[in-house]
């Protein structure tokens, strides 16, 4: 069953299309990573899913309903982001008990346990928290709410690396115990890819790919070696990335399926065949100009 269905969704801010004709579906109880560079449209997409924004065109369905201004949708969705605001008259521990009645699956012990574990003083108001502690606290709400759809928008920003690791562990543990649909946005894929099942890669408002992480590893392949030899193999094929790393030597990345049949021949020609880390693949796929930073220096 699909929890989220997006059909040709576009969302514009004036002339800028933050989300451009996006279509995808997310299955129930999957842990999906929304990956993209800064400004790729991640937050806009998440706000559309959470019902904060309306699409300019296209159809969004969350739990088979339009999420915008939808009370039922809101009761099944938790949207964790860094703009969450709580009244100053509440301390953190107050917030935990006051928010609890809204969410049917709320796990109060878990919330208090996590607050205690991350040693955040429960007797202070939310607005007094540092950026890292605020992210941690908001993430605790996200985990404890156990909403059928839980959305985290860059949850770890400001957290130190120890807390990040603990957060991912806590999230995964609770997900195993209580499976639900989770979307996690991040621009740091290598940090999250381990716990993800699917990846949705967004590039300037357009879907780059939507794949299980396990297939992403095999998605692309790199060839390295003599430029002329490489040219012979990749002639007419679409390249994801290419770089001239030394004079006469080329490094190219392309979809595995394009070169798979000739792979043996490629190896025999003395070219290095390299697997591509997910992190690098995402960088290549979302690069603004093929050729990377070197290209800028070569031109100037």
């Amino acid at each position, binding site marked *: 069953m699909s929890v989220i269905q997006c059909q040709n969704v576009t969302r514009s801010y004036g002339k800028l299309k933050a989300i451009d004709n996006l279509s995808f579906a997310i299955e129930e109880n999957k842990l999906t990573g929304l990956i993209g560079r800064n400004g790729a449209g991640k937050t806009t997409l998440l706000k559309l899913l959470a019902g904060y924004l309306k699409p300019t065109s296209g159809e969004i369905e969350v739990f088979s309903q339009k999420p*915008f*201004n939808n009370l*039922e949708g809101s*009761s099944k969705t938790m949207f964790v982001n860094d703009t969450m605001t*709580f009244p100053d008259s509440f301390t953190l521990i*107050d917030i935990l008990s006051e928010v609890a009645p809204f969410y049917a699956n709320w796990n109060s012990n878990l919330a208090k346990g996590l607050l205690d574990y991350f040693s955040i003083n429960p007797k202070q108001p939310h607005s007094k928290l540092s950026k890292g502690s605020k992210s941690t606290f908001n993430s605790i709400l996200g985990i404890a709410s156990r909403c059928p759809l839980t959305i985290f928008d860059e949850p770890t920003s400001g957290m130190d690396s120890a807390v990040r690791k603990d957060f991912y562990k806590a999230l995964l543990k609770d997900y195993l115990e209580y499976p639900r649909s989770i979307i996690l946005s991040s621009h740091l894929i290598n940090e999250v890819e381990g716990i993800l099942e699917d990846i949705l890669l967004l590039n300037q408002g357009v879907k780059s790919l939507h794949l299980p992480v396990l297939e992403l590893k095999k998605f692309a392949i790199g060839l390295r070696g003599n430029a002329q030899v490489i040219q012979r193999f990749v002639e007419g094929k679409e390249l994801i990335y290419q770089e001239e790393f030394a004079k006469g030597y080329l490094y190219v990345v392309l979809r595995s399926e394009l070169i798979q049949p000739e792979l043996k021949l490629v190896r025999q020609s003395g070219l290095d065949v390299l697997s591509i880390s997910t992190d690098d693949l995402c960088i290549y796929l979302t690069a603004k100009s093929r050729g990377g930073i070197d290209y800028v220096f070569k031109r100037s």
Partner: protein
Amino acid sequence: MFLKEADLLSFSFKQFVYKLKAHSNLLYGLMLIQIIALFFSIGGVSHMSSSNGELSVSVNTYSASLVIGFSFIWIFFIGILLTTKQYKKIELPLVTSSLSGNLSDIGFLMIASIFGSITSTLVGVLQRIILYISFDQTQIIFDKFLISFYDLVLGIVIGTLYMILISALGYLIGSITKLSMAFVLIIPAIIFGFLRVYTDFFQKVLLVYTKEAALPLFALKVLITVIILFGVSSLLSPNKEVSQ
């Protein structure tokens, strides 16, 4: 459908409770304002003295109307305040829709109105006690000095109705200005403009609410007006996106 309506009411009520706890400081603020108003009015609202050479008469008039006036201004601003971004933002981490947000705001304004009316009436009683203690009793003209319990309750009920009416007006103005900040300038301009041009009409409208002697009829008038004001406010918001 029944389930959905029950959900709406149940989540609106939860939000109302949440807001009541969150905004309790606003209610304390009112009490502070009332005490300030009390100190102002202890000096007397008007002073009159005359003398014919042999006899000199000096009359001080005391009234709690300043306290009530301050409370009216307070509830008006609370009505506006609840529609501001700052106050609407706290709904976001909760289960909410624009309608449930409005309903919980309305609930809060009603409780605030009841609270405001009760406290301002009690402050009026407090004022009388202070006067009674601080003056020689023979100097007090007992015109409406002692109030019966019935009058006290009646005063609270009428005060509440007025405050709800004013809060609904504030809430509507707040909701309109949320559509566009331009209304911050336009609304006062329109109000003052109309006041000058259609002074008679406004006076008549005002009389509808101020010169109604029968309580049930007055209550009905207020109720209908309030429903219209809150209704229009609610209709203005459902298409607003969340701006953060």
